[in-house]
């Protein structure tokens, strides 16, 4: 027997490294569901965290409110100015909604891509090491949350559901560097331009909107929304504004820098969007057959 095999410490450390690599490999594969021990651990810690985090948020919220009160006068002035605008907009929106419904009825369409049922949730915890930007929310499978649903705040989209357990779920924020994280998006303008949100520039705090065709003209300040084509998200969730456009190295596509509209740091309450329109793979093949 070789001498080094008798060294207990060496053997233990070698076994440890092998186990480490195997474990990382195992957990990196795409899993549609978590195993029950994981779910159990998550639910238990989620419960403990909710006991502590709710009072803590109340206390923190109190200080924030004091801060808000100090700004009230200034805000009130600005809001009054915008009130007139708001009335006009409201009338216009009502009119448009009515028209839209009528047109839909003519076309015999009762659901569309942009409809969703919101599930309200509050944030229990956040990943302390911020390699993966992950928040834990207090709604899970029981409440109808499923993997890959889009998560929004009032200001716009913040991320998607990464995994669920019975009573909690993990939300992966847009700012995570995950090679698998892609969102199909539209740049709103006279003509809608499609692209894919893929990646995050942590230095400039901008999302990268890639694969925009080179012949499409995009300017600073245009709005970016989800397209709803990816089978997971509803259409029309607001992502952010374009701040910069660059041509790619190969010269075939453009990349736009998008400033996320939602605050990705200070998140207390979120909504999980459950899309009303189911994704129908069957329909596509039917159409193919009839043509």
């Amino acid at each position, binding site marked *: 027997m070789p001498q080094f095999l008798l060294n207990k410490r060496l053997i233990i450390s070698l076994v*440890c490294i092998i*186990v*480490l*690599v195997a*474990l*990382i490999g*195992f*957990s*990196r594969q795409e899993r549609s569901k*978590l195993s029950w021990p*994981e779910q159990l*651990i*998550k639910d238990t*810690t989620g419960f*403990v*965290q909710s006991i*502590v*985090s709710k009072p*803590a*948020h109340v206390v*923190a919220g109190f200080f924030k409110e004091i801060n808000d009160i100090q700004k009230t006068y200034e805000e009130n002035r600005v809001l009054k100015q915008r009130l007139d605008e708001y009335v006009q907009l409201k009338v216009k929106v009502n009119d448009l909604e009515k028209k839209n419904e009528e047109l839909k009825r003519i076309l015999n369409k009762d659901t569309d891509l942009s409809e969703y049922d919101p599930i309200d949730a509050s*944030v229990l*915890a*956040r*990943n*302390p*090491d*911020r*390699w*993966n930007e*992950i928040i*834990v929310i207090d709604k899970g499978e029981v409440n109808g949350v499923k993997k890959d649903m889009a998560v929004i705040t009032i200001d716009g989209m913040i991320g998607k559901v*990464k*995994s669920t357990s019975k009573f909690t779920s*993990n939300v992966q924020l847009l700012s*995570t*560097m*995950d*090679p698998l994280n892609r969102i199909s998006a539209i740049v709103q303008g006279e003509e809608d331009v499609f692209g894919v949100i893929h990646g995050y520039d*942590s*230095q400039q*705090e901008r999302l990268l909107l890639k694969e925009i065709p080179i012949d499409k003209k995009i300017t600073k300040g245009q709005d970016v929304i989800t397209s709803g084509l990816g089978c997971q998200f509803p259409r029309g969730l607001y992502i952010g504004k374009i701040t910069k456009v660059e041509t790619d190295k190969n010269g075939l596509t453009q990349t736009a820098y998008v400033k996320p509209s939602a*605050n990705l*740091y*200070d998140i207390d309450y979120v909504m999980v969007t459950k899309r009303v329109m189911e994704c129908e793979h069957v329909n596509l093949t039917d159409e193919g057959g009839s043509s």
Partner: protein
Amino acid sequence: MNRVYVPLVAILCFIGENLFVSLIPSVAYDNWIFVPRFIFVFLIFVTVYYDKKTGIFYAFLFGLLQDVIYAEIFGIYLFWYPFTIYLVYLLMKVLQSNIFMVSLVTIVSLTFLEFGIYQIYLLLRETTMNFQQFANIRLLPTILLNLIFFLILFYPVKKRLEYYNKIRRDEEGMFQS
């Protein structure tokens, strides 16, 4: 109290990490990344002043917890927490356990921990930080934050742990005799 003290404080530290990140004002969020490693700092105390086996056991346990709850990549903390704590134990065998030396060991082990985890994420291609950015944005603020936490905790926790350690030793001595 003897038996519950370590797990109780460990759980408090774990929740404390969480609260720290969710309540930190966003001003401090933008330019630096303060990673609270309260549980790790506490486990250094346990290893130095109480018992090495307990320290490594809890490092393993809370490493697992961290992996399962947040990143869902098993093995990162599960491996690095116990391993670093073991290195702390090896270092402390040759060093004196006064405040200066232990804080030095804390700094070294935090650097080792952060760097190891950075390397793993670099391998997994989940980060694009280069070393310069990592050192400036992550490492220095993290060490600073945890050193402050260490200094606040040093005297009360050291006193308690040494006291419980004495009781534990006496009990073991009683059984042996």
